Each structure stands twice: as structure tokens, then as C-alpha cells.
């Protein structure tokens, strides 16, 4: 049984790492008052009550030490400062100071907050939230789980009910390859999810955001899942609870509840923080999107590009779209890709890879001279490219 409890702890530690020392700020208390279902967090630092919980704490802290050393963590000070600023706006400077924030390079939509106050934000989330208010909605949601000790409560429940089942699942081949997969083993209860949604929305309102953006996060996810399914010719998984959304199913019920809460507590209409968000993400979106486009999910990737292009198709967005279609290479994809690269170049794009992509596409479209001209232009603009030797060969051959 000790072994079972220990393995359970391991899974849970990876999943959430519950945190004790939560002290409510005035702002969050205000939010809590508005959201009747939000429990008031312990004023005193939480003390693990038994051996299993002490083990959970230790594993959580060990997990954080490993995360800290991971190559996955994005250490860019500007990006970290921005996300932290949004978090501090929500929870107030006092509590914010004790939260450790880790932005990790993972293309999934996810964020979590551990029992010890370590918050993990996936780059795939930053690619999907379309403005600061939407990011705030997710951060506020996770913070509410933390403030309500949801992780600890879940640990206790699971420990009583299904340690054996957890153990079996954990030892099953391939079930836990990453945080996101570990997360699929357990999920917060529906009540906890409702609390987190309402608590997060209250924090948003108190911080002066337009709370209508909260439901849009989940609506967008549903639309993205539809887009994935449409291209793969499968059934949309938006109403399934499996996979990476196991912890946070983007159900129609959630969308409707959040929309209703927003009507009751609108925050500041129109305050989406779009400009500050775009400014903070501008440098990173191409990197995050590159991770996304290599996932072989054209439907979702195209959906996300269109979302990013709401203010217009910039050259890098057109480049990204060209890459997406050139790499899939089915049906008319290569011809479409060629068109997108051309539009990017016409729009004043200066990214050398615009010419690389168009050149490679044109070679396949049996326009060898045009293709070689483009590839030479790529090499002129990017003389130190990692693939210069290969491209030079293609730009010169059968001359």
C-alpha cells in the first residue's frame, strides 16, 4: 500500500503539485465574494497532514527542481515579465511575488498550477489565446484551483478511491510520456471546474478585463477541434473528454456558463488588451507556430493562422501558411503554397525562407528556372543558412 500511495503521489506531483501557502489578497477576496462557490483559501500555510501528503510535497518540489533545469523552459526575460505582469494584475502583487512562473516550449493548449505555487504555462496556450484578457481568463482559472486547494482535495479523494487503479494505469505502457499525458489520468471534478471558471472570471472582472473573452477561449478550442477533424475526415473530439483536454474539457456547457457569468459580471467592456498582447507575443509567435506546423495537424494549424490573421495577413503569416501547405503536399497544396509565399513577398516580406519555400514549390510545379532564381535569392539573403549546401546544389543542378 505504501508503494501504491507513493506511485499515486508521483503521478499527482507531475500533474499538479498542490501548494500550501496561499494568502488571499484583498482583490482575490473581493473576487471570492462575487463568486459564491469560491472557497476561501487557508490563511495559514497548509501543512501536510500525513506521510503521503508529506511525500506529495517532496515530490512536487523535486518535480519543480527538474522543471527548472529543463531545456524546455523559455527564459526570455521580456516574455516572462509580460506573463507575470498579467498574473500580478489578476491576483495582486503580494501573492504574485510568491508564485514561480515557468513558460515551457510545448505546442499543446495547457496551463497548470502546482501545490507549491509553481505555475506552468505552455507555449501552445500563448499561441491560442488571442488577447491579454483571454490569457488572464486561463491564468485566473488555474490560480483559483490553487487558491481552493483543489489539487490537494483531489489527491485525498483519489487516494481513498482508486489507488490501485491509478497504479495500474501508471504502470501501463505509454500512458505517461509527459505532463500532458499524466494529466489525462486525473481530472478535477465538475464542481472544481465550475469554481475555477467562476473564480477566474471574477478575478478578470476585478482586474478590469472584458469578461466575455473567457468563454471565447473555449469556443475557439472547440472550433479548432472541429477544424482538425474536418481535415482528417474524422469526428470532432470537442465533446470527448480524453486526450490533452481531459483536465479541461471545452464543453458547450462550459462555454454557456462562462458567457452567462460574463453577462452578470462584465468587467470593462472592450478591454481585451489586444495591443499589449500582440506586442509581447510578436517575436515569439513565429517560433510557437513553427512548433505547431510540424505537428501534422493542418486543420488546427490553418485555424490558428486565420485567428492570428484577424488584423490582416502579415508576411510571416503568409510564409507560415505556405510552409503548412508545402509540407502537407496533397492535392493542390504545392500550388497553394506557392501562392501564399508570393503573397508574402508582395506584401513586403523580407524573411529569406519565403524564397526558399517558393523556390522548392516552384521546382515541384515544374518551373525549374523560377525555382532556381528563388533558391539563389534565398542563399543571397541567408548566406549562412543551415541548408545552404543542399540548396546551392538544387539551385545549380541541370543548368
Amino acid at each position, binding site marked *: 500500500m505504501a508503494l501504491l500511495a507513493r506511485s499515486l503521489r508521483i503521478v499527482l506531483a507531475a500533474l499538479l503539485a498542490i501548494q500550501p501557502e496561499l494568502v488571499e489578497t484583498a482583490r482575490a477576496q473581493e473576487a471570492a465574494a462575487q463568486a459564491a462557490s469560491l472557497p476561501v483559501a487557508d490563511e495559514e500555510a497548509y501543512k501536510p497532514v500525513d506521510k503521503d501528503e508529506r511525500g506529495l510535497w517532496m515530490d512536487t518540489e523535486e518535480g519543480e527542481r527538474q522543471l527548472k533545469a529543463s531545456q*524546455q523552459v523559455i527564459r526570455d526575460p521580456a516574455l516572462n515579465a509580460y506573463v507575470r505582469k498579467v498574473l500580478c494584475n489578476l491576483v495582486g502583487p503580494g501573492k504574485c511575488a510568491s508564485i514561480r512562473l515557468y513558460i515551457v516550449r510545448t505546442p499543446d493548449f495547457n496551463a497548470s498550477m502546482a501545490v507549491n505555487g509553481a505555475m506552468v504555462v505552455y507555449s501552445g496556450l500563448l499561441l491560442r489565446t488571442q488577447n491579454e484578457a483571454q490569457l488572464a481568463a486561463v491564468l485566473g482559472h488555474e490560480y483559483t484551483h490553487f487558491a481552493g486547494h483543489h489539487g490537494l482535495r483531489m489527491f485525498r479523494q483519489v487516494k481513498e478511491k482508486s489507488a490501485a487503479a491509478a497504479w495500474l494505469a501508471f504502470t501501463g505502457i505509454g500512458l505517461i510520456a509527459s505532463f500532458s499525458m499524466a494529466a489525462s489520468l486525473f481530472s478535477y471534478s465538475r464542481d472544481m471546474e465550475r469554481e475555477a471558471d467562476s473564480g477566474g472570471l471574477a478575478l478578470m472582472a476585478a482586474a478590469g478585463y472584458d469578461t466575455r473573452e473567457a468563454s471565447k477561449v473555449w469556443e475557439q478550442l472547440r472550433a479548432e477541434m472541429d477544424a482538425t477533424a474536418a481535415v482528417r475526415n474524422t469526428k470532432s473530439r470537442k465533446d470527448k473528454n480524453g486526450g490533452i483536454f481531459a483536465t479541461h474539457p471545452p464543453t458547450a456547457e462550459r462555454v454557456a456558463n462562462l458567457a452567462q457569468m460574463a453577462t452578470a459580471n462584465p468587467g470593462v467592456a472592450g478591454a481585451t488588451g489586444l495591443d499589449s498582447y500582440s506586442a509581447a507575443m510578436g517575436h515569439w509567435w513565429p517560433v510557437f507556430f513553427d512548433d505547431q506546423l510540424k505537428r501534422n495537424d493542418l486543420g488546427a494549424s490553418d485555424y490558428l493562422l486565420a485567428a492570428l490573421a484577424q488584423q490582416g495577413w502579415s508576411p510571416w503569416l503568409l510564409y507560415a501558411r505556405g510552409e503548412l501547405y508545402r509540407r502537407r503536399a496533397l492535392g493542390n497544396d504545392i500550388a497553394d503554397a506557392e501562392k501564399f509565399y508570393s503573397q508574402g513577398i508582395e506584401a513586403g516580406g523580407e524573411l529569406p525562407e519565403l524564397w526558399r519555400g517558393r523556390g522548392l514549390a516552384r521546382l515541384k510545379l515544374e518551373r525549374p528556372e523560377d525555382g532556381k532564381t528563388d533558391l539563389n535569392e534565398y542563399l543571397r539573403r541567408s548566406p549562412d543558412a543551415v541548408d545552404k549546401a543542399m540548396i546551392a546544389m538544387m539551385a545549380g543542378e541541370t543548368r
Partner: protein
Amino acid sequence: MKKRNLLLAALVLASLPAAPALAGWKLVPHAKPITVAKGTLTVTPDADWNRWSVRPIKKGEVWTLDGTGLNEVYFVSGLIVGETLYRDADKKNRPLPTLTKGMALTDIPEFFESSNRIALNTSLFTVTGVEPAKMGERDAVKFNYEYAVEGSPLKRRGTAIGSLSGGVLYLISYSAPATHFYEQNRAKAEAIMASAHY
């Protein structure tokens, strides 16, 4: 069992095909030509290697000197349009890319990168060099890469050669931990690649 070991075990299990209980290794003697991956790809190693009895895909084969964690060579022989580089283990949620019609040599590193990112569940994968090469008499592409599996502090490096003939893919890749091990056995892997023909 230590947590790290457990997690590591889970990672390894997740990234390899489900191994039958009696998976084993067989010696591949040096200096003898040998046909690999149940196809026409033939190599002549300059050192003794070990071949895994488990095939990640029907047209794939894994060799190692002293454990795949330390050094691994992966062969693919005769992959055709519609097939994947590794076993498509989670086809519903995370399908691997398939070989497409009209692929060019420059598409091979992209196909390899995308397949590995999905199979290894990582975004920390970078192609660091791409150059023209030969596999026997045929045109080929040689490329280098490095990657880390999520949550692991360990960086791995690799080098690979790929060739296409009539839209059919032949590929050999070598990977090892970036520190020490990669360089230690790179020459032995390069010797395999230099001897390859199909």
C-alpha cells in the same frame, strides 16, 4: 523505485514500440555485407553491432553498440507513399506524417523532423545542417540534428542520410547523447552510411 527511474521507464516505454516479452539482440559481425530492414538496403559495418529483433515498423530496423540509450542506428528500407517513419502509435490524436507523392531530397529532413517531434512528443528538435550526399550511386541528403525529450535535461545529437528512388525512401540515422557518446561512435555510424547502397 525512484520516481526519476519510473518516469524514465515510462518515457522509454512510450517512445518505443510495444516490445514482445522475448525481444532480443543478435550480433551483426563487422566487414560482412548485410541486408537491413527487410528490403534492398545493404551495408557493411566496420565494427560489430547488435541488431534488435523488434522492428519499429515492418521496413525498419534498430542497431546499437551498447544500448540504444547510448547509441542507436535506425534503418528504413523501401518506405512508400502513405507509410510512416515509425509506428503510428496514436493515429487518432497524433498521427505521424506519411510519405507523400513527389517528395524531393530537401523534404526528407522535414519529414524526419516532423515524425520525430510527434513520436518523441517534443518541440526541442532542430536540424543543424543539410548537405547533398550519395548513398551508393544514388543522390542523397545528409543532415544533422539535435533534440531533447520533454522534461529531460539530456540533449541528444544525430546525423542521418536519406535517399529517394521513384518516390521510395531509404534512410539511415544515428543518434546518441550529445556529450561524449555522440562523437565517440560517430565514425562507426558514418562507416555504415558510407557503405550503404540499395
